[in-house]
């Protein structure tokens, strides 16, 4: 028995080691680009560049493209109008990357030193190890990660000051104490990848531990219905917020919504219901499993929603009282900066973090035992492929690289704080790939700056 367990552990260690080596070796380009890796949104280069940043804490210097994908539009067609070198801020000039998460007077001031935090990934859709890695990185960087709709494993409790409790329609894992612990409560109304369709955890992933956490039956598929069947108006929504704030009066409230045609109205409604953060999740966001028809066709990409919301909130005179966080296809430091220039205060990261931990974007998360890299799985063996400390370090290094790039972008725009970038659409330039040779230099070469 003991020998068998020893062998099992050796097997896991063997594969873990080989994987770690692979994450280091592929970005060297000694083997070229993996021919079957990548897609338009996440080309192989971008995946490898993210692995490399998670390894070194710096952007690649070997020509790997790390700023844009090849989707031909949105962030991939935008660049910055940098100042001539002599007008840029010098390296010695400090540049502030912090943002506030509350702009409402009277409520608790919360600030994060980097303009992003981790998005909801539930226990069940990812392993406990992944949740823990994310929570550790969030603590290290004094930012946040979110439980998603799956409850709060015990191991997360020490990190609770950095964990957002998500309340979604299935109410899975929502308990009085998880609300009391949370510095931020996130109401998930919709998810960009499957807007209007609710959530679905396949039976295979509802292990005994997951089911216990969700107070359900093991190995039975779990649906989070859409929408909240008790919310049909802004007033109903406010009732929800009041309920949560009765339990935890200190908590900030985030409202996660998708991007319908009337996203501007939704944002205003959320503000009047009392939200501190409006988290807008664009149609091209990540998911553990979603109908393909929804990912591609329902609701608009985040790039197109942000200017609409930003402008409308400005017109309504409430832009400075609410924080807009953008997600749904934020892959790089450049995407973060562009989203902010389009009107967000900051961003919420999901897939990028998984890529940093080894995701190849193969799309098999929901198949069989779940992710073969130990990410989106609850398989007891596969999930051991990710050690939480190793994962936390990788995320920390990715964050460091992103922060360095963000500072670099701000210096080259002559801005001393990321807060000055918000809504500065005038600092962007639109270049459809192939428009000019100049674009080839900006996007195609992949030269690190």
């Amino acid at each position, binding site marked *: 028995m003991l020998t068998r367990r020893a062998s099992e552990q050796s097997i896991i260690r*063997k594969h873990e080691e*080989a*994987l770690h080596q*692979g994450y280091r070796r592929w970005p060297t380009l*000694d*083997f070229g680009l*993996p*021919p*079957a*890796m990548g*897609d*338009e*949104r*996440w080309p192989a280069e971008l995946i490898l560049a993210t692995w490399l940043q998670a390894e070194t804490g710096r952007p690649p210097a070997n020509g790997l493209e790390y700023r844009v994908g090849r*989707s*031909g*539009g949105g962030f991939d067609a935008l660049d910055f*109008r940098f100042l001539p070198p002599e007008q840029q801020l010098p390296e010695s000039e400090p540049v502030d990357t912090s943002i506030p998460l509350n702009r409402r007077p009277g409520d608790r001031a919360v600030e994060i030193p980097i303009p992003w935090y981790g998005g909801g990934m539930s226990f069940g859709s990812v392993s406990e190890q992944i949740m823990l890695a994310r929570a550790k990185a969030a603590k290290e960087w004094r930012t946040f990660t979110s439980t998603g709709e799956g409850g709060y494993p015990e191991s997360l409790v020490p990190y609770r000051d950095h964990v957002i409790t998500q309340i979604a329609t299935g109410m899975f894992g929502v308990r009085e104490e998880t609300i009391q612990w949370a510095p931020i409560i996130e109401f998930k109304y919709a998810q960009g990848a499957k*807007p*209007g369709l609710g959530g679905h955890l396949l039976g295979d992933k509802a292990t005994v531990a997951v089911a216990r956490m969700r107070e359900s039956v093991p190995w039975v598929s779990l649906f989070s*219905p*859409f*929408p*909240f069947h008790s919310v049909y*108006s802004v007033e109903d929504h406010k009732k929800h917020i009041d309920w949560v704030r009765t339990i935890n009066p200190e908590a900030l409230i985030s409202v996660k919504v*998708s991007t*319908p*045609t009337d996203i501007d109205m939704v944002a205003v409604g959320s503000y009047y219901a009392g939200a501190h953060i409006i988290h807008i999740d664009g*149609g*091209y966001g990540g*998911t*553990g499993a*979603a*109908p393909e*028809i*929804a*990912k*591609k066709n*329902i*609701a608009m*990409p985040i790039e197109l929603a942000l*200017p*609409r919301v930003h402008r409308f909130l400005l017109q309504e005179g409430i832009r400075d009282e609410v924080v807009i966080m953008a997600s749904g296809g934020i892959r790089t430091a450049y995407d973060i900066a562009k989203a902010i220039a389009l009107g967000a205060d900051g961003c919420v990261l999901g897939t990028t973090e998984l890529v940093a931990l*080894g*995701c*190849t*974007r*193969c*799309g*098999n998360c929901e*198949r069989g035992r779940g992710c*073969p*890299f130990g990410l*989106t799985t609850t398989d007891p063996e*596969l999930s051991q492929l990710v050690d939480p400390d190793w994962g936390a370090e990788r995320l920390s290094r990715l964050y460091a690289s992103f922060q360095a790039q963000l500072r670099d972008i701000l210096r080259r725009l002559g801005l001393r704080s990321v807060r000055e970038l918000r809504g500065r*659409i005038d600092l*962007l330039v*639109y*270049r459809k790939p192939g*428009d000019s040779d100049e674009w080839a230099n900006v996007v195609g070469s992949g030269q690190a700056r």
Partner: protein
Amino acid sequence: MVTAGRLSYRRYRIEIRPAPDLVRLPPRFRVEVKKHRLIGLVLEELVRYRGDLPVVLSRPCVYGVFSRPIGGLAPKEELCVGCLRCTVQYPDVVQIYPNPERERLGDSYLKPAHVDTLLYEARTGHVPVRGAGYRGPFGGAGWDGMWTDMSEIVRPTRDGIHGREFISTAVDIGEKPALLAFDERGEPVGTVPKVITIQVPFLFDRPPRSARPRLLLEILVRAAQEIETLAMVPVDLVVRFDLAGPHVVPVVEEETWRWLVQLAWSPRMIAIEGWDRERLAELERRFPESILCARVPMDSDVLDLVRQGARVLHLTADYHGRRNGRFVMDLIRQAHQRLVDAGVREEVTLIGSGGIVMAEHVPKAIICGLDAVALDTALWVALQARFAGECRNPETALVSFPRLEPAWGIQRLKNLAASWRDQLLEVLGAMGLREVRRLRGELGRCMFQAELEREAFAEVDGYRADA
């Protein structure tokens, strides 16, 4: 559903059953193992793990590609899902390649990825679900430059697809006069409504000229019957193959007009190729009970045709969704809008075909203004047809089918229809609509990339609305 004589309710659903591919597809990925390196790796690990065989022989692939008897020396490529774990771990031993043979499926419009999706739908009847987010280009030309709406707080939604709340996908095809007139005895006079209700907003178009074997037509007709929709069949073949039935729509052309005399039954709908008032009048005389549908090019002046008496129009484009260089999305919007502006849209049924090859194209075409779509190439791909070159022109496209087995073919089309219907429910549910009829022409419930970009990027230097 209320049946004559007694009240009974049957909730509409399409029975799905697995219907595996008849023709084996090439695997999605090629798994290339450098055998000498693999042997070297095993030897190295034998030393390293001191002969602990379970450890040495444990393989990176969790999908069984390197399973017994000889593992990596003879990988089972058909099991590979392209996760890349093997090559991430051992880049010098194994490489994974997309299989170029898969790239030869379909044509330049109906691409290999579409073929993959259609075959999955026809095999299983399920909605394609995958992990990770969207992987494709940012919007794009044609249907890809259009997104459908969702609503944050309304029902019915996902409940619809799980059957707790009913979302209707039925549509009516036929003549729908705006007003009824009655005589002094209270009997309706003049034009009275004459409609066929089909349970899904899609029907089956006739196959291309190159492929009209009896078995294929029988499969289309039987599947249409079981799905409770319609199949369009050239009238000569209706007669020759004895394909009578309420789900058959004979299509008459100039050269097949003479076959009409042999049509010994009264179809619920007859389609005529082109616009010919005299011929339509004659059809009306001969088949007074039938709904008449004129198949006309999608860029026709629909308002003029309606003023001349047309009530059911089938607007056609080529299989790539083009008509005189314009894409169906714009042509449908234009046709719909003309009828709306003239105040006659409610009296007319617009069916459209061409370029509608994915489930999402159905709601998009309906939003643009169609009542129903007629499916073509997607059906044939579901039956594992192969195209020789471009499948674009209905007159000249070369399409070949495998040896068809009727029960299999019918099930494949039922599976496809069930999957597309469920996907339609997803789209309707996300919008909070209870019936597809309400989707027609609802341009407010969709977003066009060009318009959104104009709004979002107008102030961005270098953005050109016409780009």
